[in-house]
């Protein structure tokens, strides 16, 4: 296949699933390197410098979490983890260890595609643009530097903490931010165990921004993992 697109690294031990994913990705004009074990994957990550890693958490040799930790010591390579275990704690741990996004098996390839593209887009944006000035999705508009938030024409008045919370989510728009990461970034490291702060402020924020706080459109809950600011893509 004469593809010239970004190089993706796929670490997945199941041969059928590896074949399915690499075929699908190559069809979308990506170049794909595959590895069946964590060690092999880490070597490829070092030698071929891929643009993105798709990592299955259950690997035969070293645990997927270990792969993330080792990789994060020297690389900011974007990582999407795949988990067959629907244990939220695994996913949360992977995200806290430095993974960027996750998918639980089974998932549609369309879903994977959109995650891969979104993540590559985000990475591409980072170095040039610096701090983003403005974030907009549907009716919600956040002016990050001027610290103003609008829903449609209406300006919404937020407390400093509510605004900080919204900012963290906006900077990672489209990606899940774990409870731990939010608590640390908004309140500070000593608040990591105080998840009730997050719930209360998230509730307040929703009541100010959402049309129906019980069916949020912007501030989405990823049960047991964290929150995601909707970009209208997923």
């Amino acid at each position, binding site marked *: 296949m004469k593809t010239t697109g970004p190089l993706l690294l796929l670490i997945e031990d199941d041969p059928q699933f590896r074949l399915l994913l690499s075929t699908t990705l190559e069809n979308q004009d990506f170049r794909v390197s595959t590895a069946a074990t964590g060690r092999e994957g880490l070597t490829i990550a070092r030698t071929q410098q891929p643009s993105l890693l798709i990592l299955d958490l259950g690997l035969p040799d070293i645990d997927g979490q270990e792969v993330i930790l080792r990789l994060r010591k020297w690389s900011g390579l974007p990582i999407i983890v795949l988990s067959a275990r*629907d244990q939220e704690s695994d996913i949360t741990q992977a995200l806290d260890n430095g993974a960027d996004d996750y998918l639980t098996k089974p998932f549609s390839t369309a879903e994977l595609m959109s995650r891969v593209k979104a993540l590559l887009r985000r990475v591409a944006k980072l170095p040039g643009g610096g701090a983003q000035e403005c974030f907009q999705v549907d009716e919600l508009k956040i002016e990050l530097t001027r610290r103003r938030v609008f829903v449609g024409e209406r300006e919404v008045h937020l407390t400093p903490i509510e605004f900080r919370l919204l900012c963290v989510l906006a900077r990672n728009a489209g990606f899940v931010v774990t409870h731990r990461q939010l608590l640390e970034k908004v309140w500070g490291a000593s608040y990591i165990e105080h998840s009730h702060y997050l719930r209360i402020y998230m509730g307040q924020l929703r009541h100010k921004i959402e049309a129906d706080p019980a*069916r949020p459109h912007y501030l989405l809950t990823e049960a047991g993992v964290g929150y995601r600011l909707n970009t209208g893509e997923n």
Partner: protein
Amino acid sequence: MIPSYSQRAEHSYRYLFWGSVIPLVLTLIDWPFRAILTPSNILLVYLLGVFFVAIRFGLWPSILAALTSAAAFAFFFAPPIFSFAIDDPENLAGLAVMLVVGAVTSNLAANVRYQARVAEHRERRASALYRLSKALAEARLEAEIIEIGVRHIHAEFGGRNTFLFPDRNGLVRYPDEPPLSISLAGADLSIARRVFSNGQMAGRGTDIAPDETVVYIPLNGSTGTIGVLALEPVDVRRIFLPEQSQLLDTFVNLIVHALERAKLAEQAKNATLKMQAETLRNSLLSSISHDLRTPLATIVGAASTLETDEDRLSKDSKRKLVGAISEEAQRMSDLTTKILEMARLEAGDVQLNRQWYAPEEIVGSALRRLDKKLKARQINTQMADNLALIHVDAVLLQQVMVNLLDNADKYSPAGLPIDISVETTPVGLSITVADRGPGIPKNLQQKIFDKFFRIHAESAQSGVGLGLSICRAIVEAHGGSIQAVNRSGGGTLFQLRIPILERPPTIDSEEKGLIL
């Protein structure tokens, strides 16, 4: 209690003391009457004293009493007084007769005494056995039996002791239960293992390892040695005297029988449980094999058609086949998730990951998960204002909501609304999910929460009847309850109550200054 050896020695000194004192007391009593009483009368009084000592204190004290009496009589009563000499041959003969009669009766009395003591011991042993067997008869569990054994052996044979049983690998080792205060701690396991394998006693007082302070006694049951009793006797006589060793044997036998009985009962119980599990597994297998095979048949069929007839299929047919594969695969995936979820909940203690959550968020994330399915459905959510945070496992509770909403969607005609309400009541958080479907017959409102129960078993609706049992398992793990009732105006209303166990924590209030 059997008096110990040193106690007995002390007793016999005291007894000898009484053996010599009683004749002297009698001498004092007789002395004022020496003018009235004839010497033979006085001898009879002494004889009475000797009798008394023999019955009360045994053989040797009574012989001492007889000799003391003889001396006292010779000195105080037989002329010449205040001299051991005796003039009158009649008195001499009387004294001799008294000594002989005293010796003979002492012997007889001491015999009677000994018999009484033997009988008493026998009776005590019998009652110890009775107490043990009574206690064992009431015990059901192995641990209880062992505790009873340790206590009774300690009481009867005076010594710390412990029962050692083989582990899974057949190696004798200490039990896992915390020891009693009277349990023996320092048994030598290598000796115990030898005793266990050859069924022979070892340790103190035996041929094998006689230097040990502990005696190792095999617990020989009907099917061989089942364990070892390690006993550290305070006094070896209490174990190796023939009657005592026989008693210990009987004790051990009783305990072994009780243990074997408990084991058999346990095995019988396990067999019953196993049978029930088997039945359940069979019903599960027959239930899910149907539900898994149907979509699989579609997938396999459609995929093989696509594989072999690719060229002859129209674009439209191909799309339909691919659509069918994807839809059926999704169905299988849902089903597998439910089965795994149930298995996880069934596996025993569910570890709830309780955190503080907003009830609103739990409902919201459940609705979002069903976004596609519920797109066309009108959903009315009624949230009480200022709902407090609740300390729950949000992932599991979200699953409950998803299952309830999914059911409501599945079983009520399209176009009719689903109503959700959330409020806090004095007993806890109350969430209701109500539809306008056909409702549930009153007699089935309990049964629908049973595993694999479906109102219309072979209906076209997919599902194995696990959704509601998963709900119940989760809600009950939270200490709450779930029930289904018919709604006025038609439809079903599911109500769940989650008790509030802890008051939500407070937070430092933020400066009210708004940013602008």
